[in-house]
Every structure is written in C-alpha cells, then in structure tokens.
C-alpha cells in the first residue's frame, strides 16, 4: 500500500518580510507517512517546520518537488488535510458543539446525522457537558481539545498539527499529550505533528523526522516502537527504551542548535 503522505525533493524559499533577503527554508526534503502512522517532525527553531506544514496544508505554494496525499498532488487547502494550529483558532462566536461540527456542516451533512457524529468527538476529547459553552468560557487546554476534535470530526485523510500544545502550561501539556496518544490509539489517524519539543516527539511519534537548521533538510528518521497503551508519562520516564530514543533525538537536535541560542 502506498504511503498516505508523500513528500519528494521539496525545496522552498521566500523573501523575508522585513529585510527582503531570500530565505532558504527547505532544501530537498523527502519523507513518507504510511497509513495509520503518527509521525513527528522535530528540529531547531527556524528550521522550516512551519513552512513545511503550511505547504502540506496547501496554504503556501511550493517551488520545487512533489507533495502528494493519497496519491494526489497538493494544490491548495482541502478537507482531506485537517490542520490543528498552534493557536487554537476556534471561532469565538460558535459553541463547542458548533465548532466541532463545523467541518461536517461545510460538507453538507444533514443535522441529525451531524449531531450524532459531533457528539462522538465531543465525548472523545472529554468535553461532554460543555457542548453549549462558548470558547471564552473554556481553559486553554479545553480550547485546544475543541480544535483537535473539530479536525478529527471532519474525517481528513491525514491530520497535520503545528505545535498544538506550545501555548498551554506544562501540566496541561502533559495531559493533552497523553490524551492525544489515547485518541491516536482510538482513531489510528495518519498524523504529522510539528514540534520543537523532543519529549513530545518521542512520546507521541511512531517515527520521528529530525530536521537540520535552516535550510531545513531531513537529517535522520528515528523509529519508536513503544506500544501506544504503554505510553504514559510516569512509566516512560524510567523506561530505558524511551529514554534511549529520546536521548538519540535530543542529541541529533542539539547538534543543530546554534551555540548562540536563536539563529
């Protein structure tokens, strides 16, 4: 079976917004994500991770290479690629249920069917009882769960996530990571997660793509074969296999971080 998501020889550069200098963001990137696989992309800041995600989402046209989802070239945004952004980006004027069911509404699914399916995903992300709340009544973690449920509910072929837990506090982040693991186990959704957090990549990924600093190239692919039902933070922190994988990724990433900090 061909991979769900294929990136071949992708390069991208763009003029910097302020200086006008040509920024070489991605250089000859090739990677595959097979059906049902949860892949993480990790790399130092400014390595073109977000550029990659925007290209995959179809929000950014690319110059060189191929991007295919289910064998079809990516040309612009489409519901076959669901995106969860760093800022939750749920609509403040819609209730939790209306946000989560928005994709189905756009697809034209009739009301009764839509509410049944929406409810499934509300339950999946543990927001039962909050259906009629507005986003400003929710915590940051809950908002991000709404965004996740909205994307999954629309049933995309692949789910793209851009630093989805970067904006929440450390405790919430751990809970959300464990929940995302549980959801990945339940839905087996093909996923590409962009993150700068090595722990997060190792915890959630079936495989982990490590990027070099700019221009971003694929540096290494690390497979993590820990079964999903064993992925619980308290246990993994002392699991030699997890610790070894995490350290391997960490070393690869640290080699790329400029000694002066941000580059």
């Amino acid at each position, binding site marked *: 079976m061909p991979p769900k998501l294929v990136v071949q020889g992708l390069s991208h550069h763009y003029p910097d917004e302020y200086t006008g200098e040509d920024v070489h963001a991605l250089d000859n990137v090739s990677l595959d994500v097979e059906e049902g696989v949860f892949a993480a992309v990790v790399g130092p800041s400014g390595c073109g991770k977000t550029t990659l995600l925007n290209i995959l989402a179809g929000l950014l046209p690319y110059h060189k290479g191929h991007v295919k989802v289910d064998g079809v070239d990516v040309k612009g*945004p489409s519901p076959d690629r669901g995106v969860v952004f760093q800022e939750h980006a749920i609509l403040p004027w819609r209730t939790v249920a209306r946000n989560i069911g928005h994709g189905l509404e*756009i697809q034209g699914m009739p009301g009764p069917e839509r509410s049944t399916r929406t409810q499934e995903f509300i339950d999946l992300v543990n927001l039962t009882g909050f259906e009629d709340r*507005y986003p400003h009544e929710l915590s940051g973690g809950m908002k991000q769960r709404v965004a996740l449920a909205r994307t999954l509910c629309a049933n995309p072929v692949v789910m793209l996530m851009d630093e989805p837990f970067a904006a929440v506090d450390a405790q919430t982040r751990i809970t959300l990571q464990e929940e995302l693991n549980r959801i990945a186990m339940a839905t087996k959704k093909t996923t590409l997660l962009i993150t700068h957090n090595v722990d997060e990549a190792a915890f959630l990924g079936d495989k982990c793509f490590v990027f070099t600093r700019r221009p971003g190239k694929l540096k290494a692919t690390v497979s993590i074969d820990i079964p999903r039902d064993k992925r619980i933070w308290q246990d993994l922190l002392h699991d030699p296999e997890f610790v070894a994988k995490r350290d391997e990724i960490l070393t690869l990433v640290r080699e790329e971080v400029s000694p002066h900090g941000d580059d």
Partner: protein
Amino acid sequence: MATTSPSLSPRPRPVPSARWRRFTKGGGAELLILLVGIIVLWSTISSLIPNPSRYLPAPLTVIFSSSDMLWKGLLPNYVGQTIWRLVLGSILGLLVGIPFGILLGLNRTVSDMFYPILNFFQSISGIAILPIIVVWWGNSEQTVFTVILYTALFPIAFNVLAGVRGIPIIYINVMRSLGASNMRIIRDVIIPGAMPNIATGARLGIGFAWRAVIAGEMLVGKRGLGWMIFTAQDTDHTDQVILGMVMIGTIWILIDRFALRPIEADTIQRWGLVQR
C-alpha cells in the same frame, strides 16, 4: 441563600432593597438628582429673565403651552414621521454600508482605490451635500433619505472595514482547510468576526443619521421634529422649540438604550469579544 436556616438572622426584605441598591448603583439616583437640579436651575433662570416666553420658557410652561400640540395629535405625528425617516434611512445605510465595508476589508486593491474618495466625501457633511440633492430631487422624501443614507454610510463602512481587517488570518486558514467556500467564509467568519465593529459602526452611523434627519427636516422636510422646531422659531413659539429639542435627545437615548445596545449585548458579550 435558599438553604440558610431562617432562625439565624432576621431576614432582610430583599426585593425593594435590592432594587433600590441596583437603582442607586446603576447611577439612577445620581441621574434623578441631576435632572431635578437642571429643572430647578432652568425654572429659576426663567423666572429671573425678562420676557421668558420668548427667550427661555420655564419647564412647566413648555409642558402646558405645548399640550395643545399633544391633544391635537401633532406631536405624535411629527415624532412618528421623524422616527420613520430614521429607521428607513438607517436600514438603507446598513444595507449599503455593511457589504461595502466587507468588500473594502477583503480586497486591498478595491480599498486602495476607494479610500481617498471615501475620505474626501467623509469631510463633506450631510448638510453640505443637501443643496445639490435638493437641486436634483427637490423638497421630497427622497432628498431626506439620501442625506440620511449618505451620513450613515461612512461610519458604518469604515468601521466594518476595520473589523474585517482585524480578523485573524488563522480563522480563514482553518476554514479553508475544512473545505469552506468563500461565501461560507464570509458568512461564518467575516461577518461574525466583524460584528463588534459592525455594532459600533451601526451605533455611530445611526447616531449621525439621527442628527441628519433633524437637519434635513429643517431645510426640506414636511412635518417631523426638525421641521417643527424650525417653524416654531419662525412663529415665535420658543416653548415648542424647546419641547422639540427635549424630544430629540430623549428619543435618541431610548433608541440607544432599547434598540442598539441590546443588539451589542446579545451577540458580542455572549461571545466574549468585548473583554479588551
């Protein structure tokens, strides 16, 4: 609290005291004192100046000498006429101003093209374009409506434009990756996202329109409050002039309190968009 044992303390009388507290806290008491003060001051000045019926009739005189207008049904008739003009003119202003503002907000080319022209016309007040409109359409209702529409249009369009520009691009990106069409994005994101500014624009625009109605009626209208105070001055009925002014201010406060603000509260506050 419903669960508190009744024997613990003498129960206060909640209803009148709570209502009184809300009245005083909401500024009701201050307003009442202020109003009484103004009326007392006004009566005093009237009683001290020569020929008050020409220069400043006392509050009671205004009410009594204007009462024949009330009995004859003239005042309700004028008020109705003026409000009808405001309502129709404002609806026209919203129907033109909101789509126009959205178009300007969405398209840089269109807004760059129109902005200087809009800015130019914004400086020409409704009353300043009235003469040319009279030349075109004479002393007709059409003339009054045109001036109201013209006046309401700018604050509405400019505010909607700012509102549309302020919508985070990420909302639009999310909608596009959910497969939304442009029309769907306008309906589900642009219009609700610009709602705080649409409400502000509507309130400002209708406020300006209210002044424009009065001014328009003075010069071209038949009947209406503006026409009333203008002709009252001509016929030396200062009491009617003052009555008209009081009516204009009072009606506006009622429109704002009971028609415009509830719209704001019902949408924007419920969505948590006004915490800034």
